[in-house]
């Protein structure tokens, strides 16, 4: 199971943080501070896994952003890497070529999509279609549907 999921940029600024365990605010800040130093300083060709305290950190760099997820010691690291990629691909499809700025200004949408892919630290769906559908449907009821969404969602 995942303990937390983070999107952090190269300067260590948090762009999205999802906690699947009840960490106190103090612990959260501490983890964020320590992890960002740890992960950002790793070199390109090193492997995408770091053992840190009692979790395994799986991270991947996407342009200016690092996606970091902490998993239990007996979880499968490689498939977690693919889960990160699934999320980033879904964001890419949703925003249409996602960049850091999209996530900064629409962080709530990034959360909505994450909530459709991961729930309580486990994978909810193994494809991009269902999470995207759920996000678009929610958008149709709540606010503007992104312009690049399929036409069928532009009901309003």
């Amino acid at each position: 199971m995942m303990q937390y999921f983070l999107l952090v940029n190269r300067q260590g600024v948090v762009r999205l943080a999802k906690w699947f365990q009840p960490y106190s605010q103090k612990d959260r800040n501490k983890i964020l501070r320590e992890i960002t130093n740890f992960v950002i300083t790793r070199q390109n060709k090193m492997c995408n896994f770091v053992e840190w305290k009692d979790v395994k950190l799986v991270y991947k760099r996407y342009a200016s952003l690092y996606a970091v997820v902490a998993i239990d010691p007996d979880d499968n690291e490689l498939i977690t890497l693919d889960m990160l990629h699934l999320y980033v691909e879904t964001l890419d499809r949703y925003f249409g070529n996602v960049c850091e700025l999209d996530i900064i200004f629409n962080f709530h949408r990034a959360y909505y999509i994450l909530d459709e892919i991961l729930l309580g630290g486990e994978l909810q769906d193994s494809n991009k279609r269902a999470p995207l559908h759920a996000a678009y449907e929610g958008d149709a009821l709540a606010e503007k549907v992104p312009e690049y969404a399929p036409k069928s969602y532009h009901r309003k």
Partner: protein
Amino acid sequence: MEKEAKKLYKSTKQKLSKAKRSYVCRSLKDVVRGYRNCKTASEERDFVKKESAHIRDLFREEDTTFRRQNVLKLLFFHMNGYPTEWGQLECLKLCASARFKDKRVGYLGLMILLDENQQILMMMTNCLKLDMNHNDTKIAALALTAMGNISTPEMIRDLLPEVLKLMQNGTPHLRKKAALIGARAVRKLPELSADLIQPIRRLLSARHGSVLLTSTTLLIEICKYSPDLIPEMRTDLLPLLRDLLSDLLAAGFDPDLTVGGVTDPFMQVKVLQAIGTLAKRDQPASDSVEDVLSQVLSSTDANRNAGAAVIAECVKTIFKIESPQSLQALAMSNLGKFLISKDPNSRFLALSELRNVVKLNPALVKPYTETILECLHERDTSIRHRAVELAFAVADQNTLSRVTEEVLEYIEDCNPDVKEETCTHLVDMVDRLSSNLQWKVEIFIRLLKKADDYVREDLLDLFAALISSTSSVQGYAAERLFNEVLATKADAPIVASTFKLDRFAFSIFGEYGELVTSHSTGIRIDDVYRAYDAALSETMESVATEELDRATYEALLATRQVAITSAAKLFSKVVEAGQVGEENILQVRQLISKWRQSLDLESQQRACELSTLLTVELSEARSAIFARQETIDADDARKRILLPLTGTSSSLALLGGSSDLIGFGDDLAQLPAAEGSNAPAAQRSDPLSDILGLSSLPAPPKAEPLPLPGIESLTMPPPSRKSGPSAQVAGGSLLDDLLGPSAPRPASVEAARRPATTSSAASSVAKPEGTELGPLPVMDENGLQVSISLFKVGTTPQNETRAVARFLNTSQQKIERFVFLLSVPKYMKLHLQPATSTSLEANGGSATQSIGLQNAMSGEKSIQLRFRVEYTKAGQPTMQKQGVIANIPRDL
């Protein structure tokens, strides 16, 4: 008319809200932009402060138009590290709104902001309950999402009926979420597992992609937290999962599900995990999945990440269940490919997987020893760390020296965080696999030279014990340590980087040095004298305090104290053996006497005591006091070292690599740790301090303190030791009193215990830095005296204080079932060790109990202690006494 009025109302409202929006409330986008335009951190703070005040005003006015907007702004501030707890209630208000768009933001806010605030959680539970029963599935989905991310045990108990209902009757979208909530529920409340078995059967037979994925997750969690339910599920669910897996293997390309050429790797990994847990320790079940597992290995392309993930999981499953050797061999060949792969991820994975395999069958991993050792040279710390762990586990008698060399090289430049652990593992491995003690000592000296600071004290104890138990190696160790360490002291007296090595060398040489100085070819006694002379040169005192930090200073002092004792011990034995004349004793006495003026109390005390002992009058007593100490039990030291190691090597040591234990490795590995932790702390002796021979001499049960001329007699109860009483009764009790490490000190000596930096103010009223208080009388009644001393130990943090309570029975009757308890206020923490004895003999029977105290408000509040004493005397009812220990100053 009515229609027009409505229209007018609507348009006015719209205009108003537009006006409000432009003049009163900035949009989320504007706020994010405004924040990003701030140039400095203080500008950012001001901006957030201003906006927060604005938002708070609107919240207070119970504004509903901008509530959503404002909560999102708060979330943005929260993400940037600003306090936003005051927004939680607003999120709840949004959740309670009837509209989907409000609820969506509300639940998002709760998921992000919520800590374990009980009141809010209770209100949230009500909200969730209503929404789960809502007709609109989108709203029910929101509620399920929120619950999947925040669920306390109470919430789970309250809402389980709703979740179960949705798990069975909802749309696939709801069912998949409900299944994951079930997984979370089982994790927190395993007793719920039985209720979820039936729903799982239905979910799995529905065969809807996402629902299958999440219900398999639920199945795995149930197996993990309620293993007693596995047999019940095995019969019907295992065939189902097996068929599912072979369907996935046979499926063609699906644009939605294929990742890196593999059909739904996420599902495959989950199903493999589930198969592993269901077929574990069951031969027929394992046989039934054998084919499909080998099919996975042969048909999956490992070159892409997704395929490698599936193969890794499959290998894990193969070693989890009762698989035949042919399948295990196939799995190993896959791991071998990973191990030499160019991709660092694959190498890391192979090393992790081999770590599991080595627990079951070390023989399978041994052929890869060389490759594993090569990984130690990588730059990637993750891989190196894994490799070194594996190297320890895979080493055997044949590869021991090769592995040791590689690890010693690794220790030199490895991450400081893991250095200590690695040193301990190395010593454990060397000790476990080699019977050649000379070699072990050699390796230990090399280790100390490379990583002095990171070698745990226990390891010094272990080697002290090992050397004491084998007479053939004593001379060798003494000679090696002299040549490697002491002989160099003339050039570089005592340096910070080799404190432990120095201490070890002095203590061993003091104990066994006379064995190597006696032969004509051995070490010349002049050289020995020169080494001690250099180590104990007075010039060191002035260097000591100014430039060194406290810990280093303490270590320096400790080393010097050992050196003083070592010198006295060695020379008295050398003289006694007739190797050199009596005049040498006086020479050494002079050397030691210099330290009687030392500003360090401990050094001063030792110098005083030992120079008294080295006088001609006491030469008889000397031989008894300085006699070679008894053999120390090395197993005791080993147990302490193994205690924190739950990793591969210690569990292997226990398993002995026997293959009939396959599958039970995990359970057995827990044993040594559990055993060790049960060992009462009071029984632990300290072999290294023992080796100095001074405090180790066993005392008779009734120790009457014998006053020693010139030194104030201090009452210190005999420490409880495992070794029985020996013949050296008089000398023993004599010295126990002298060197009780925590004995209370006379006030006159206290003044001298100031570090050199404050020595100019020696006569002023300034308090000594190494604070110590006591003994404070706690109680004295019915012949039972209890006192407590508190002191700060130099290396401990500012807020920690140690204490020793002493109990003395002066009455005519034996005191039994004696218990001494303490309690502290909330801002403090208490670690109460067991007392050395629970019974006190009549007429002077005594015991001690050591206590650790942590004061979180050190400096602000003083230590406050309440005590409680219980005991019985023969034939009398249990006596109790409680009260407060007063007069503890604030700076302790």
